[in-house]
């Protein structure tokens, strides 16, 4: 007799029959459990949302008037026949892996994750399970992240050189997560830290929920760039080179993403400088996270799914590619990298 699997992969997203809910669905459903607030995971149009207390404020800001409920990390909730709990994924502040247990069988849907502590997000916690759903955005052995302090030194050196040359440094980063992480890495002795409106909106939300962030100046239309020499400006990538950015006069642009590890992509994408820093796990991170779950069955989604799955199968796991509509593999459209 085969019983219903705890989680199944449907054309609307990951579904739990025992609890009648979806995880990070991409089409409107009645009940959605959301791992984190990035736009490709937290979509509009769900009947109700359940996410961590720390993830909810940003989701409310982005999705507007939604029916949503918060849950604490580690808090266990019974939904139908499923026991559900959320555990830190280390991806961005508030991001979670979702553990689902039905009749003693445990699935973990990890969403996006990284295992290094960025000093800002709740650090990743390995959760023991039978079935682990993993991303594979950077699932190739060529991706190996340097220590955060080394990348910080690189960025600060670049910023200092820009400041010394009388140029404004523009650093492109996604508004939720990467932007704040970079802010905490910057050396405030070099100059003032300015932010684009989209970044500052997220900053305000995070500060209100108690996340400690460095002081920033909002670089809106009323700001006179001349009043802020030696500044670094953190802005979404789309704002680099815009009319707004050009008002700052002489400038250099940098882009911070895991994709910057590849020279070809860096040259295509980076403006003046590319910094290799990601909120996803690198190759070693993915493999060690999977090992720590002690799961036998691994479901691989967005990223280099075929390659990563083959590697896992050759190394004793029972791994499968699961289809997704997340564009995790892309560099040019993804929300975060």
């Amino acid at each position, binding site marked *: 007799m085969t019983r219903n699997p705890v989680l199944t992969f449907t054309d609307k997203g990951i579904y739990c029959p025992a609890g009648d809910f979806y995880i990070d669905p991409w089409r409107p459903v009645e009940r959605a459990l959301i791992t984190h607030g990035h736009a490709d995971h937290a979509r509009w149009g769900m009947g109700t949302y359940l996410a961590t207390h720390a993830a909810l404020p940003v989701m409310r800001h982005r999705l507007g008037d939604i029916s949503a409920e918060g849950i604490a990390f580690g808090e266990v909730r019974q939904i139908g026949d499923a026991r559900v709990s959320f555990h830190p994924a280390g991806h961005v502040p508030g991001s979670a892996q979702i553990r689902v247990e039905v009749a003693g069988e445990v699935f973990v849907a990890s969403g996006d994750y990284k295992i290094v502590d960025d000093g800002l997000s709740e650090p990743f916690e390995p959760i023991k399970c039978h079935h682990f759903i993993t991303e594979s955005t950077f699932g*190739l*052995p*060529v*991706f*190996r992240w340097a220590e955060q302090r080394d990348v910080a030194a690189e960025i600060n050196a670049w910023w200092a050189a820009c400041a010394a040359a009388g140029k404004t440094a523009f650093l492109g980063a996604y508004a939720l997560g990467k932007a704040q992480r970079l802010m905490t890495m910057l050396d405030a002795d070099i100059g003032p830290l300015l932010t684009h409106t989209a970044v500052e909106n997220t900053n305000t939300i995070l500060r209100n929920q108690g996340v400690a962030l460095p002081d920033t100046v909002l670089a809106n239309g009323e700001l006179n760039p001349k009043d802020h020499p030696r500044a670094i400006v953190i802005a979404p990538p789309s704002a680099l080179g815009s009319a707004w950015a050009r008002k700052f006069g002489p400038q250099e642009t940098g882009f911070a993403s895991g*994709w910057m*590890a*590849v*020279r*070809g*992509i860096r*040259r*295509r994408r*980076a403006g*003046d*400088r*590319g910094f290799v820093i990601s909120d996803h796990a690198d190759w070693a991170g993915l493999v060690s996270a999977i090992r720590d779950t002690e799961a036998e069955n691994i479901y691989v989604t967005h990223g*280099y799914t*075929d*390659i990563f799955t*083959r*590697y896992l199968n*050759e190394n004793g796991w029972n791994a499968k590619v699961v289809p997704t509509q997340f*564009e995790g*593999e*892309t*560099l*040019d*459209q993804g929300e975060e990298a």
Partner: protein
Amino acid sequence: MKRFATLFNTIDQSTKTSVKVTALAGYFAEAEEADRLWTVALFSGRRPKRAVTTTRLREWAAEVSEVPLWLFEDSYAIVGDLAETIALVLPPNSETSNQSLSHWIKALRDLSNVDDLERKRFVLRAWKTLGGTERFVFNKLITGGFRVGVSQKLMTRALAQSTGKPEAELAHRLMGNWHPDDVTWHSLIEAEDASADASRPYPFYLAHALEDGPEPLGDPLDWRAEWKWDGIRGQLILRDGSYFVWSRGEELMTDRFPELARAIDHLPSGTVLDGELLVWQAGADKPSSFNTLQARIGRKTVPKKLLSEAPVVLHAYDLLEWQGADIRTLPFTKRRNLLETACADLPADAPVRLSPQHRFAEWDRLADIRATAREENAEGLMIKRADSPYLSGRKKGDWWKWKLDPLTIDAVMIYAQAGSGRRANMFTDYTFAVWHGNDLVPFTKAYSGLTDKEFIEITAWVRKNTQQRFGPVRQVTPHHVFEIAFEGIQASSRHKSGVALRFPRMKRWRQDKPLQEANTLDDLNEMLRIYG
């Protein structure tokens, strides 16, 4: 190696020529002589003799990184550069080294005298000692192909800045088949008698494309016109009783064209001609197609049979050196007169011929001539300003190429493959098909002509519409129609469709065109009948 790695990073990270030139000039002023020489060599496409095969490099890299070889190869397919893939996949370096660029090059050269085990030991040791860009550079020294945004022109400018010598002279000095193993910085860059090398060619002068017709050029009487031949550009050097043939890519091709040796019998030493290498059968009134020439280019030595089947002649259109004197600064008409004098007494079977000029007094007349280019197996016209000196490189204003409009066909994209280098991670290389009944028959590949934005859009589409994967190749749902432009069409038994195209590229993404309205194999065969 650190200094060179820093230079490499500065150049690689910048798109501004001023930054690159400054970095290079600074490097040339400070680096030790052997390093300078090698830097000039590397950035002009020269490289140390390959000491280790890439197959071994891959095996060793996979072994040290503890990844299976297939995973290494798959990663390479995505990163698109072997040296970089190795540099990324290896564990971080545990030691550092202060050895210079030329030290590493010398050490690599010494590897040719040792066995495989010793080579492996050396390479693994280097990987342990070098990190980041240094490791990448080290790998590049073995695999070759430093594609960094430094043109020869830019490097020459930097050299001029740091040595105080004129750019044109330096450009000339850097031409030819010198190798850092055989020259010194002094003999290459500084020594008074730079013309000592009899084989040294002049930098080629390159034309710009004329997009909107010749009217903006002004008075037709100020201009000269000739066919733009569909062969390969070549420079024939006759000095000291020897001959040398150079391609535009600065490759010495003398041995490939033994028939040009007879030029020495007809033209005096101290003559340098610029012209087009063409296959031209005895008695024919036009050259053979480019395909015939291709068979010759591919051969380093030429069998007798091929030599008689596909005889090559140089159609000369410019004279750069005459009676041992560099005459490049003379106006074109004067050089042309001298060229005509030099070629006046050539017998009909000489391997050098004068490329004829067209007579025209109005641009309309020239347009009529251009319309007949395909019948002459020419690509279009070259238009040169009558009083222009022979410059070097691609300088706008004096020389124009006015090519025929390409042939075009609407085709369906059926396979896609990721590009490499700047296009890593984007699907940019496509295979196209035409209809044959209800089947789609593949007939060409193309990978240029679209904007980055279009490539990004198609890449996202490919990911969602992949039907099957064959290694790096994805079969996609037939849906998108592209207008493919090409310069020529030939019968080919090697292709399923029976045709081979010359210079295929994507002219337009025909989002307006339904799949069913793409062209057919019959259409392609009709083009082959007319233009093949």
